[in-house]
């Protein structure tokens, strides 16, 4: 399933599958890369647990996300409710212990929120692209039936998300970012971080005798950072939103997500390369009222390149009208009828959500090549 679902069972199953991963599977999970030469059956046994873990982890991450927000919201409501209750409730109500129940409730809810978000980010760290279980794994399953027994399948698969630093191949801007703006961003971030730490230290410092001095300092720092941050905030706004518009940034990611080669049961050699080129266009412009808006556009070019070589002992060329479009024949060599197929697709969208590649489409391209040959007796 491409869309994750809310289910608590997946949480437990994801952890269980994770704990039973072997060294090779753990390495694939952490590096987000598959590389090697194995038989199709061996690939299935390596990838089986990984695909199951990934499916459950996706559901668990979604569950943690939903739970995290709900527990945070309910905990905040309970906390605010207790504060209001303590200030305004009559004495009899205060003595009833209701305030204690509210205090325990928001503590538990905040704890659950913390655990949910912690696991959300942990599952996000080990998330694998859905292409593994929606394309690669089913493809390897077909190769266990169609592939030659005991022959090796060379597989190279990237499993990180396309918009990762490792795939960034180019950035083009129509403006030069000012050094002042870059430094202002860094200063603001540092001030906000130190300010939050000071506030937390000031509010939650334990009551130890020797730490009164530190408590006072933390309070002074918190005040200093709040005032300085307030002043610098306006400087930052001016540096960020000044300059000429529109500001356009084009970032290109080249994502060679799959490359494999295999020998089929009929001695046909099949190899394929799948490369996605993602273009992310960020446009910052002002509307007639002077408001600054940022818009994103996404473009995807999908290139599938297949090389298939039919053994001349088993196949002869089938004279027929060649297919138009993506089909090109390569010069045949002595032993094989070799065909090269290139298929290109283009998509564009305003949200970064593209369909995962369809296995049916790839099989259809290979079927076109089979349509070019006929078996010999």
């Amino acid at each position, binding site marked *: 399933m491409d869309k994750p679902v809310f289910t608590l069972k997946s949480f437990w199953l994801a952890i269980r599958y994770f704990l039973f991963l072997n060294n090779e599977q753990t390495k694939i999970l952490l590096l987000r890369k598959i590389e090697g030469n194995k038989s199709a059956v061996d690939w299935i046994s390596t990838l089986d647990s990984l695909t199951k873990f990934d*499916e459950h982890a996706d559901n668990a991450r979604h569950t943690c996300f939903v739970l995290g927000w709900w527990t945070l919201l309910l905990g905040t409501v309970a906390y605010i409710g207790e504060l209001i209750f303590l200030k305004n409730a009559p004495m009899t109500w205060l003595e009833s212990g209701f305030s204690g129940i509210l205090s325990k409730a928001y503590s538990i809810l905040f704890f659950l929120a913390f655990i949910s978000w912690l696991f959300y980010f942990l599952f996000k760290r080990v998330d694998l692209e859905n292409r593994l279980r929606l394309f690669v794994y089913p493809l390897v399953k077909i190769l266990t039936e169609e592939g030659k027994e005991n022959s090796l399948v060379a597989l190279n698969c990237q499993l990180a998300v396309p918009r990762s630093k490792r795939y960034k191949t180019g950035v083009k801007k129509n403006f030069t970012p000012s050094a002042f703006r870059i430094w202002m961003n860094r200063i603001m971030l540092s001030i906000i971080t130190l300010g939050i730490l000071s506030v937390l230290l000031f509010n939650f410092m334990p009551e130890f005798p020797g730490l009164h001095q530190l408590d006072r300092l933390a309070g002074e720092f918190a005040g200093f950072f709040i005032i300085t941050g307030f002043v610098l905030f306006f400087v930052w706004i001016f540096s960020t939103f000044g300059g000429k518009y529109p500001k356009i940034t084009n970032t290109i990611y080249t994502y060679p997500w799959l490359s494999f080669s295999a020998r089929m*049961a009929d001695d*046909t050699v099949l190899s394929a390369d799948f490369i996605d080129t993602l273009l992310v266009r960020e446009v910052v412009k002002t509307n007639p009222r002077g408001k600054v808006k940022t818009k994103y556009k996404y473009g995807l070019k999908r290139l599938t390149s297949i090389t298939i070589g039919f053994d001349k002992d088993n196949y002869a060329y089938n*004279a027929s009208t060649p297919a138009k479009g993506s089909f090109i024949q390569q*010069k045949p060599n002595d032993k094989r009828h070799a065909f090269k197929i290139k298929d290109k697709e283009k998509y564009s969208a305003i949200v970064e959500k593209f369909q995962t590649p369809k296995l049916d489409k790839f099989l*259809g391209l290979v*079927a076109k090549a089979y349509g070019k040959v006929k*078996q010999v*007796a």
Partner: protein
Amino acid sequence: MKRCQIKTGFFVLKECGAVAVAQCSNCKKNFCIDHIYGGLQTIQNRKKDEQSGLIKTQTGEEPILCLECYAKKNKETVQKQYQGGYSSVNTTDDLLWYFYMRDSFYRDTSFRPFDDDDKDSIKTHSNDFDDDNSSNTFHDS
């Protein structure tokens, strides 16, 4: 000894060839333990046919189906099970997914796979490659 007659493969079909244990009540093909719908428990406690040595559906019994026939007969049920694509978690039978996928691929693309039986009826022609008049250069250099 009877052999499994279920066609495996995707672009080139060939018979499985494993030792057959039962016969499909729909297509009458013999099939092995890997290609039975429902697994081993479907044929447990059933009697073998004395003549063929295979387990067959008797009168009043639940029909024994091979995976291929089950996938074809119950398209909607199987389609719901694998809606959105193959899921290693949903399936209790990976081969059911395989036959369902293959059958729907053949239907959707009208692709006719090669079959071992086709080989006997094919003859090679020596002038197949010499197509000098064609602008699409499929001949040897």
